[in-house]
């Protein structure tokens, strides 16, 4: 089995004794309210999805991630995982303090051991992580809404949040047992935030042909307007796997995490997460985790050149199309025919057809998948 990133599968769940102690003395702790996306980060730290992180980044790690795409100990890491507060909130807190991170209903989610507070530049954050300070980029827009101060320190999970889709939510510890029980030595991870079209299926099956198992791992959580809703993605994949995949060769597990739309940096982050789940290979397509035209189409491939130490092997896929003359999915390396015979897998075009209540051609989307979207009253994030 592939080792977790940084060699340790992190587990940061508070003991029963500690949980009761905190419950008994709940009034004594300062509370920081955290939103759903932050709760997802906390849970991902606690269950080892973000191994080797044990909490929110301190200044040395934060700066090293921004400047070099690595933690301060040189381990590859490209996306800051941070806890932000306003200056006035930070002034009330003391380093060494234990703070309760609470959800919207004021329920304690985690105990936070505040180790350091530090300021940062939002311009620097945006330009390094997203490659732009243009506020039409959703990640940049969010960055400029963050508090001015970051808090670094370890966390301990106090209670499991009520995430939806329990059936499809597994922790790295569990997927590692699953892969072992299935006898999968080589496992390929597939990241998605879309309803699958035939091009996706082609990529997954091509990768599956030379590995033992496919780990379909859609991101569920906050997305941008126009993206597919989580329940539509779930139903679409259920249909696809039921009708077109061998049950013993593919599993569907959700990753509760927000999309950052950080393109190449996020591709490395996504690969690290799948490594922690136990994947040995990771599919990186065209414009992975991109948005608009902020990143060159294959920037997410090129960045892997800087990370030869990742261990998980990226599988790069270029653009595919359906060629009527070939009678199959093909690409520029495999199809000798003119463009008039080709149908492109344009996500925008497929979404437009579905929006108009039309069934995309079977060469582009499986009918069972198209029906899921068409049946849904509001299939897109509004």
């Amino acid at each position: 089995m592939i080792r977790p990133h940084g060699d340790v599968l992190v587990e940061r769940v508070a003991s029963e004794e500690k949980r009761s102690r905190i419950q008994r003395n709940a009034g004594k702790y300062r509370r920081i309210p955290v939103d759903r996306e932050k709760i997802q980060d906390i849970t991902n730290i606690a269950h080892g999805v973000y191994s080797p992180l044990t909490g929110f980044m301190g200044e040395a790690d934060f700066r090293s991630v921004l400047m070099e795409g690595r933690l301060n100990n040189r381990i590859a890491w490209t996306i800051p995982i941070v806890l932000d507060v306003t200056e006035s909130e930070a002034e009330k807190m003391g380093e060494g303090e234990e703070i309760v991170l609470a959800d919207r209903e004021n329920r304690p989610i985690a105990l936070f051991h505040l180790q350091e507070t530090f300021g940062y530049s939002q311009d620097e954050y945006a330009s390094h992580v997203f490659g732009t300070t243009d506020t039409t980029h959703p990640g940049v827009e969010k960055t400029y809404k963050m508090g001015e101060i970051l808090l670094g320190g370890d966390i301990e999970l106090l209670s499991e949040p009520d995430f939806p889709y329990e059936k499809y939510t597994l922790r790295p510890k569990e997927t590692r047992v699953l892969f072992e029980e299935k006898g999968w030595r080589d496992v390929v991870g597939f990241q998605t935030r879309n309803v699958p079209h035939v091009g996706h299926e082609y990529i997954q099956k091509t990768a599956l042909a030379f590995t033992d198992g496919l780990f379909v791992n859609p991101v569920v959580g906050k997305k941008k307007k126009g993206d597919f809703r989580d329940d539509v993605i779930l139903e679409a994949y259920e249909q696809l796997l039921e009708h077109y995949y061998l049950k013993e060769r593919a599993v569907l597990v959700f990753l509760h995490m927000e999309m950052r739309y950080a393109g190449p940096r996020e591709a490395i982050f996504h690969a690290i997460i799948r490594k922690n789940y136990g994947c040995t290979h990771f599919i990186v397509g065209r414009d992975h985790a991109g948005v608009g035209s902020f990143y060159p189409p294959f920037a997410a491939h090129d960045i892997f050149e800087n990370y030869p130490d990742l261990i998980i092997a990226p599988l790069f896929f270029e653009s595919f199309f359906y060629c009527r003359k070939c009678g199959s999915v093909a690409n520029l390396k495999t199809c000798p025919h003119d463009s008039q015979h080709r149908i492109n897998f344009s996500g925008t075009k497929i979404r437009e057809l579905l929006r108009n209540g039309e069934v995309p051609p079977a060469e582009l989307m499986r009918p069972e998948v198209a029906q899921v979207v068409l049946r849904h009253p509001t299939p897109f994030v509004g």
Partner: protein
Amino acid sequence: MTVPKWATMEKTTGIYLHLTEKLLKSAQEAAQRKGFASLEEFLRSLLKKEVHFGDEESISAEEKEKIKEKLRRLGYLE
């Protein structure tokens, strides 16, 4: 040779690799070509790829059985 910061914190193996001059030169070139900071880092990466650590040391038999039960309940395992 650049020594990564974390290298000083880890135990040394006491193993000496005897490489022919030709193999050493090729390995150094490969490490450089692939972007590793040092030959040591390159060799460590190769070892991690090839060595299997067996069962995850952090999972006890009891915990593993609980996980398997959950996986069966959710339909991931027969």
